[in-house]
């Protein structure tokens, strides 16, 4: 067990060092700040322009605060295999005695951290620039929901990243799942607007429950009041993590057999 933890810690450390060596932490923070600002402003304007009375700009802003975790954590963890392939480090990792799953689990720490940073930045914008009223919000509950959201989405991201080992690039899946929340997870409008066949996919996404729980927390709900969406979200995150373990084994074996570990 301690060996697994060591592998995860060293993988996380290496990942932070290499990512920050390419893009300085302050530059990365600036990118998050500007990207979140423009994306939130875009949907803020869109909601105002469309003029749907059910969907206020405030509704859209809270949704996009949570969505920022998906674009950071989910995208980043889904894309780990692509990054390793492009930098030529997937084969050395595979030839080491460490299990690929444990290495990737450690590397997901970067995406999780970026998710936290992204939410803090977005919440700041929501209050200071977009005038969202947090007067009656349960700030402790918002913090708990954020932590659980980042972890759940990392679980889902690893499951997607597992498939990416076999694919030429995981960026298609990473882009798709990183942004699909804008449409199907209740970020910009209630999911009841969607056709019923599409709503089925909404219920399989941890982000749907994260958005619901965050809206409740902003409205002042306690953790016990939002237990239902939180339980489902965490269960889904755990389920995706278990699936990812099998995914890694399955696709790692296929890649090894076909000699396609480093093809892209």
């Amino acid at each position, binding site marked *: 067990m301690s060996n697994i933890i060591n592998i995860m810690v060293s993988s996380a450390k290496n990942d932070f060092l290499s990512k920050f060596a390419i893009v300085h932490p302050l530059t990365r923070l600036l*990118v998050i700040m*500007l990207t979140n600002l*423009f994306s939130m402003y*875009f949907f803020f304007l869109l909601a105002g322009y469309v003029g749907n009375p059910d969907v206020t700009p405030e509704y859209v802003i809270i949704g996009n605060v949570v969505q920022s975790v998906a674009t950071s954590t989910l995208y980043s963890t889904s894309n780990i295999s692509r990054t390793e392939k492009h930098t030529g480090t997937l084969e050395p990792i595979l030839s080491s005695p460490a299990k690929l799953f444990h290495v990737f689990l450690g590397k997901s720490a970067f995406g999780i951290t970026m998710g936290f940073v992204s939410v803090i930045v977005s919440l700041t914008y929501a209050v200071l620039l977009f005038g969202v009223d947090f007067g009656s919000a349960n700030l402790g509950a918002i913090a708990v929901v954020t932590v659980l959201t980042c972890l759940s989405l990392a679980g889902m991201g690893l499951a997607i990243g597992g498939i990416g080992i076999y694919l*030429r*690039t995981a960026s298609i899946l990473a882009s798709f799942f990183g942004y699909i929340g804008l*449409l199907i997870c209740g970020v*910009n409008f209630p999911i009841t607007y969607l056709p019923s066949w599409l709503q089925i996919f909404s219920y399989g996404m941890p982000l749907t429950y994260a958005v619901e729980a965050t809206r409740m927390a902003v409205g002042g709900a306690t953790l016990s009041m939002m237990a239902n969406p939180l339980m489902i979200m965490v269960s889904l995150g755990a389920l995706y993590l278990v699936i990812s373990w099998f995914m890694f084994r399955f696709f790692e074996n296929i890649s090894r057999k076909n000699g396609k570990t480093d093809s892209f």
Partner: protein
Amino acid sequence: MNLRAISAGFKQQAIQFLADPQWIIPSLISPFLMTMVMIFLSSGGTTIEGPVVLQAVLGGGVLGMWASSLFSSSSSVSFDRINGTFEPMIGSGTRIIYVLIGRSLWSTFIGLLNAFIVFFIAELMFGAGMHVENPMLFFLTLLMAMLSLSSVGLLISSLFVLTRKGGTISSILEYPLYVLSGALIPISWLPGWMQSISVTLAPTWGVDAIKYSALTDHTGILGVSFATDIFMCLALSIILILLSYVVMLYVERKVLRDGTATRY
């Protein structure tokens, strides 16, 4: 004008793209989702029809062109750095700007394809009613708008020679043009200072020309005529291309002087 280098740049970009055509998908996902979000937002959970659908689809097509131009221009030199081909390229007797122009022309072609894919899927899903009075004029305005977006991409490519963070920084630039071009949200909805920036961008006029050629009751940004749109779009695009040329001359000299061509 080095036509041979432009042709070689176009051909090389085409070969790279055809070797990995799935790159078209990530640049399609985000714009298409924006279109869908606007359509569902305006539907209010009931009917999906009316001019807003057509406007969303047209806007989505423009966003698709921008995403294609932005991501290909930001990754253009970055990939050369990763693949170790930047130094031989800069050491050859050809000015890099001509290679980049060739690559941008390929991106223009793929961007147009992106737009048509968005139109086609929207028509299939929503029956958007893409009735265009003058198809040839519509195609020409679309081509002009794409060239204007490519001219912005060309300038970005030139500037990104100076940095290894091109891929990261490009994500900042995606949403500002979504907002400023008026593709989905008319620029009259923007604050005055933002409108001032919008009118200096060639794509803003290109988008307006597309709307003139496709929407029957379009009145034009700031009440200008279709001819003004064409003139402004072409004039600003030419200025951007000339600016890119000057920037590239400076960047080439700087990179050669500092010996930083393959620093990664």
